[in-house]
């Protein structure tokens, strides 16, 4: 059976004090191993910086990066090998095979986020932007009140 390309999602956590150069070096290796296997990178983003749920190598915080790509299985193996090699900088990593729809959703969200930065860069915008204050008070509080079970009827 012929090997077909798959969609993969890799999430990896780096040390919070990792320098930009070292990070760039690691990320470049990941991208290289994808492109050398005729792969296509769909998303390469910083996902979040957050407190870890438990300490890993005495680190309490970590920076999460996400990498979504479409490539042959060999590429994902190489990506994992690189991440394993830098295991003092990369605290955790996990690669999952994902569906095409899930991968394309990533593409859509990235396209949504990129135009947001573009209007900020374009200075000529004399129109005052009307600030729509659509602050609706949360109407969810009523929902929680109806959960009390009735117990102990006749004792």
């Amino acid at each position, binding site marked *: 059976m012929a090997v077909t390309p798959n969609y993969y999602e890799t*999430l990896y*956590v780096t040390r919070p004090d990792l320098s930009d150069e070292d990070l760039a070096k690691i990320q470049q290796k990941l991208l290289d191993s994808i492109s050398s296997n005729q792969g296509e990178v769909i998303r390469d983003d910083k996902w979040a910086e957050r407190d870890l*749920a*438990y300490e890993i190598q005495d680190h309490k915080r970590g920076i999460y990066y996400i990498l979504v790509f479409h490539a042959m299985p060999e590429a994902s193996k190489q990506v994992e090998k690189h991440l394993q090699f830098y295991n003092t900088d990369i605290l955790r990593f996990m690669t999952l095979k994902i569906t095409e729809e899930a991968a394309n959703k990533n593409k859509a969200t990235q396209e949504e986020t990129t135009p947001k930065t573009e209007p900020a860069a374009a200075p000529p915008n004399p129109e005052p932007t009307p600030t729509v204050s659509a602050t609706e008070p949360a109407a969810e509080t009523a929902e929680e009140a109806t959960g009390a079970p*009735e117990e102990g*009827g006749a004792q």
Partner: protein
Amino acid sequence: MDSRRDRRYFSKKKVCRFCTEPIEMDYKNVDLLSRFITDRKKIVPRRNSGLCAYHQRQLATTIKRSRFMALLPYTVLH
């Protein structure tokens, strides 16, 4: 006898949230998953979560992935 017992333990029939609502199970969605763990960070059983068997299995896998990535704790003792 039976009818009285039924009445005493009557509770509203739960419907699986993941079947009825258009929400996806994702190990990165910590806010959603944290609703399905107890105070002691254990996975909520099916009788309490109200999920169907399929989604409960998915939930367990997803929470375990999330734990591995240090998004959720394994215990309160960390």
